[in-house]
């Protein structure tokens, strides 16, 4: 307890732990970047086919390559940042993001029936994407400062809940149920790792389950429809069930080894919706079969494993919680997207990290990967310092 009260003092003189830039560079988790590049490469193969090759989709292919290049540079730059730099500015970032979310609610751009984007003239930003990261960071910082070890009681959760709820409610209002679920789930993971007692966990889970009927009533009609459609897609084969059915056909018809590169009929004959964005996994599954998707899932698994490893090795609580949150965010994206494509989860607009076409998704993922790498760079395994 005493130690934590002193921490602000340390913030005043951060240069105590200053590690030289070249050292940080050599500590960069290159293995993570290799795994990321592998996923991206698999994704580019699928994207190439999904947009119809260079003939029809050169634009998409070049754009995505640029996205990735920029994102990799961003990741490295973020990773090489000073050890306490991010922790220091967490609440500021959180506040800014919250304000942006508020602005979206008031004057956001409407697209696909939802108010999600903020038009800044040159770029359109999606504050809900930023909030995923901002919230993880804010929660990590809060628990880092509290340093209650271990076993959080219900009262200790009041501030984290205050951090989560406004953001969550604004995202749900957009409405963007998929992102809301991810934000909530990631927040819960951070709280869980921070040390919630099993009793409190049990109470919370019960409370959430009990509130489900209320949530159902509160959902928009189309959101309910999507959930219903998941369980009975054949009832509406040309309407909302169409995506699920066609996606399952694409995935299933790929078989063990797939139909071959550029040979997926569901993809090339336009039966598959949202081929290059949310449903790109189906393209991969159709053309490369079970073997192909197994390879991709394995690499994803390695990235998640790597992330968790970084979390356990992190120098301080902030690092541990930040790495856990980012890794679980990544894992949630992967699982929700694939689960949706194979007909296990409702169709929500969650892109497949590093694979789905789109700059904002790519940037969010790579910024988070940069933060993960940052934790790794300053982790304990390289412990040339004795912090305590």
């Amino acid at each position, binding site marked *: 307890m005493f*130690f934590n009260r002193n921490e602000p003092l340390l913030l005043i003189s951060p240069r105590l732990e200053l590690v030289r830039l070249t050292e940080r560079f050599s500590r960069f988790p290159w293995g993570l970047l290799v795994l990321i590049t592998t996923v991206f490469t698999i994704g580019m193969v699928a994207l190439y086919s999904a947009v119809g090759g260079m003939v029809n989709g050169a634009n998409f292919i070049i754009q995505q390559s640029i996205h990735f290049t920029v994102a990799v540079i961003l990741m490295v730059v973020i990773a090489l940042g000073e050890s306490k730099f991010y922790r220091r500015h967490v609440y500021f970032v959180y506040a800014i993001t919250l304000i942006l979310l508020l602005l979206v609610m008031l004057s956001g751009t409407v697209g696909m029936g939802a108010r999600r984007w903020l038009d800044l003239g040159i770029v359109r930003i999606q504050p809900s994407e930023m909030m995923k990261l901002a919230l993880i960071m804010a929660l990590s910082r809060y628990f880092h400062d509290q*340093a209650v*070890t*271990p076993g959080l009681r219900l009262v200790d959760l009041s501030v984290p809940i205050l951090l989560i709820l406004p953001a969550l409610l604004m995202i749900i209002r957009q409405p963007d149920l998929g992102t809301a679920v991810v934000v909530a789930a990631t927040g819960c*993971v951070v709280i*869980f*790792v921070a*040390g919630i007692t099993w009793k409190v966990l049990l109470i919370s889970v019960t409370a959430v389950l009990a509130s489900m009927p209320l949530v159902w009533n509160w959902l928009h009609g189309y959101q309910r429809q999507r959930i219903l459609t998941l369980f009975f897609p054949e009832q509406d084969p040309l309407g909302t069930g169409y995506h699920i059915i*066609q996606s*399952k*056909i*694409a*995935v*299933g*018809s*790929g*078989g*063990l080894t797939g139909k071959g590169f550029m040979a997926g*009929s*569901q993809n090339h*004959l*336009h*039966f598959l919706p949202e081929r290059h964005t949310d449903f790109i996994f189906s393209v991969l*599954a159709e053309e490369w*079969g*079970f073997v192909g*998707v*197994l390879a991709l*899932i394995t690499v*994803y*698994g390695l990235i*998640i*494993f790597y992330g*968790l490893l970084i*979390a*356990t090795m992190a120098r*301080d*609580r902030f690092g*541990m919680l930040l790495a*856990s949150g980012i890794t*679980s965010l990544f*894992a949630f994206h*992967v*699982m929700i997207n*694939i*689960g949706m494509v*194979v007909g*296990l989860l409702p169709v929500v607009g969650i892109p497949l990290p590093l694979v789905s076409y789109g700059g904002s998704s790519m940037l969010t993922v790579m910024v988070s990967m940069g933060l993960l790498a940052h934790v790794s760079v300053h982790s304990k395994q390289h412990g040339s310092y004795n*912090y*305590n």
Partner: protein
Amino acid sequence: MIENPQEQFRVDVRRRLLLLGGASGLLLVGLGVRLFYLQVLKGGHYRDMANDNRISLHPIPAPRGRIFDRFGVPLVENNPDYVLAVIPELAGDLAQLLSRLQTYTSLSDKTIEVVLRQSRRQRAFLPLKVKSHLTWEELSGIEVHLPSFPGVIIQTRSQRVYPYGVLGAHLLGYLGEVTDIDREQFTQIRFRYGDLVGKNGVERSYEELLRGVEGVRELEINAFGRQVRELHQSAAQPGQDLYLTIDLALQRSCEELFQGQTGAVVVLDVNSFEVLAMVSYPAYDPNEFIRGFTAKQWYVLLNNPGRPLSNKAIQGQYPPGSTFKMVVALAALQEGRITPQDRFFCPGYLMRESQRFNCWRRVGHGSVNLEEAIEQSCDVYFYRLGEKLGIDIIEKYARLFGFGESSGVGLHGERHGLVPSRTWKRKTRKEAIWYPGENLITAIGQGYLTATPLQLACMTAAIANGGTLYRPSMIRNNAVTPVIRQPVFVRREHINIIKQCMELVVNGEHGTGRAAKPAEVRVAGKTGTSQVVRQQRHDDRSDERRFRDHALFVAYAPADRPEIALAIVVEHGGHGGQTAAPIAGKIIDRYFERQRLQQGRGVDHVL
């Protein structure tokens, strides 16, 4: 014990992260299992569904076999039917285009409205049918201006055409959309909804041959239904052409001479039993079945008292009347019950068991022998033969001549007629006993006995060729020797006696069939009258035509060396000698006149 709270925290975090890692590992494995289920276990199922999505099968119609007469004159053909269609996505302003088309083809505003409504329902790249059955004028008008009508196309499809209309209508039959009844009958053919199938006549009897096998184009289509490429094509196998035994010229003569009557004519070649002509009147135009009827036309056709839709040559069942007397006479001779010289006295009636059996000639024929009895068609003479023979022998001979069973000609819907017997009566009638009086009535071809015109023609032809009953045939595609249904079963001398009698019917001084006497050849025949109303004989001049008797006549010619045999039934025509015989005579006359002319010119056949 770890002192440092941070390291203590780390230990706790590790435990929790291990739990999280395990959970994500499990979830990823779960996804893998799901993918294994979809792709490997159910892969075949989804592959089929993907193929269903992308492959569309387009049938290539097989041209139906044509039908020719015995000399190769086409009786049924396939003509192109030109259909005006438009591809909306190329047309620009569809409504304006259609109204411009009105200059060249008769398009009502209502039709345009229907087409426009349809265009909103289907994809813009699919052809939209505007009008079928284009005339030559419409076709040429549109073709010339095609460049100024973007998106307009002329589609060609095959349409069945019967160039001679009503001529041979019953024989040829017609086509109609397939129904469950057709599917049950032709189990080998895989019909598709809306397919045309032979409904009657040759079109139905030889459906399997005429039909051919549909080809198929396998097209790959995209999600919008647009064709991407052709995957595979199997060509259609055209149906087989049929060559009938029918002689179109003879058929035409028969129909011309039958104008205004109701009934049927069948002409057979006596040696091969090939059907040379088969007429049923009144008839219909099979082309109307192809074009489609209005409800009114159909109603008129259905309710015509002449029953134009039935083929009376094989479906009309009439008591054969006196035309049956040859069979009875042959039975009596063959069984030795009479000699040709035996005489019976005819006072105009015969009393049996207080019942009076009238001869058609009320004043009687006096004493008559076999020859006179047939020539003058004396009923009393044959009442006596009926008494002597009994129903069992009459039945036996009637069956030997092909009565009471299908002739085997192979036309759809042929009826069997009826040869009564004791067993038959016991089984079907309330009064189970065969009365002696019924022997008498059967002997003059009345009572329960019925036969189709085709059966009568077969009987006549069998007598004419010396006693062999063949199976009649309609198809000449591959020359087959005629199938014998019943080899000669009566002595030739008996047949010759009967043939002599039949010559007298037409040529004798008192013959009942003198009206049939043609100029060209000598004819042998027999008149018959079949009662429509039993017991009391109606006056021939009765106002009610429908109560009048049917007139029958059977004949063969030439009498010395028979070539053709015919049977003719004129419904409600009165006496056979009055109505039926003259028509028969003229048919025979025309046939041999044409043959003489052709031989004179040394031509095999001319029409």
